[in-house]
């Protein structure tokens, strides 16, 4: 039999876990997309050497599991003198992970903007930075916005792993609750549903934000 009522007394634990997961998601989404934007710009317009460095970073991250990256940062880096709290290590690992994926996605967006736009901007007297921010970035981001936001949600779900280095996120809460009342199935089911709710909510939020950000383009 299932007893969900046993979980009610632990609603505080779940809520605080949910809060940590949301905080980390929001923070790493912002930092990861910034990192990805910088890397994608370098990858698309930089010189040979810097392009090479970015692609090594992207391929290394995309071809190794997140949990190994997390363990490397949390357990491995202290061995060479970089001490990190579990929270800091998770934030860095998540940012680096999303950064690599978003680099690929954003670069696809940049590559889809025709060369003529760049040349036209130059003719109009815009410098490189102005061209990027006023001519290139907005249509590029509009194109790849759905892919980028899906990736953010995938990273949020992947963050469940940080409970393994004892960050008190939603998964940590589930483990804690099931170790107290031995109701493993109920506790993990409720947590899975909370994650599902969170990913649906995030998708709505991203869609609403997307409509706002790119509204002027569809209005005419």
């Amino acid at each position, binding site marked *: 039999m299932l007893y969900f009522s046993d979980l009610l007394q632990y609603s505080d634990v779940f809520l605080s876990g949910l809060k940590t997961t949301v905080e980390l998601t929001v923070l790493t989404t912002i930092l990861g997309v910034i990192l990805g934007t910088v890397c994608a710009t370098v990858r698309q317009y930089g010189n040979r050497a810097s392009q090479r460095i970015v692609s090594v970073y992207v391929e290394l991250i995309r*071809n190794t599991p997140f949990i190994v990256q997390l363990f490397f940062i949390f357990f491995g880096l202290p061995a*060479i003198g970089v001490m990190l709290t579990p929270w800091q290590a998770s934030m860095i690992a998540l940012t680096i992970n999303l950064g690599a994926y978003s680099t690929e996605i954003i670069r696809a967006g940049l590559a889809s903007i025709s060369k003529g736009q760049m040349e036209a901007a130059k003719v109009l007297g815009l410098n490189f930075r102005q061209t990027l921010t006023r001519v290139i970035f907005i249509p590029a981001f509009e194109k790849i916005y759905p892919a980028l936001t899906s990736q953010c949600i995938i990273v949020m779900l992947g963050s*469940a*792993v940080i409970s393994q280095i004892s960050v008190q996120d939603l998964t940590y809460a589930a483990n804690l609750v099931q170790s107290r009342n031995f109701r*493993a199935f109920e506790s993990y089911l409720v947590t*899975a549903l909370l994650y599902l709710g969170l990913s649906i909510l995030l998708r709505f939020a991203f869609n609403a934000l997307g409509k706002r950000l790119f509204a002027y383009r569809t209005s005419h």
Partner: protein
Amino acid sequence: MIEFSNYDILRNLMFATQWTILLSLAAFIGGTTVALALTAMRLTRNPILQRIVKIYVELFQGTPLLMQMFLCFFGLSMLGYEISAWSAAILSLTFFTSAFLVEIWRGCIDTLPKGQWEASRCLGLSFLQTLRFIILPQAIRVATAPTVGFSVQVIKGTALASVIGFVELTKVGTMLNNATFEPFKIFTLVALIYFVLCYPLSLYSKHLEKKFNVSR
């Protein structure tokens, strides 16, 4: 305490790699089988079956793989179904793989012009004949590259099986770390082994993508 030489570490990691490969293969085979069934359900145009596939995808794409593994491993045994870490890992990775593959394949089938279905009907082909002679040969060409690309995600996903106690590459890495206290070296090696497994697949997927785009 036993001393581990570099050779011992590497040998143990290489030995564990075969379990990672085996688990990946099992998950990929299970995942493609279920995804084929789900794709067939979608193609029937039966609204109820389509709805079921949609909910399936939503459930397994919208929740963390780790949570699915916990549910399969701890959850099922709580309900009286004793299950090994091996079966729980394969089961949850099959759900995960199939949920993503069915979406990838749907995208591939949708890229084919709708007119092809109608033209086939006009030519008097049945639904199955249309599928077999018209749609599938084209869809498989389009779908190969993203499917190979997704196999990288499956291999990386198997790393999570370490959390429920399945002894594969990541688990052996943490065990060796506990024995040797050389985390930097060990996790670098573990990451490199995953890279060696995944990178050729990534390259192959990119190669296929280029090949099919050029010939179109």
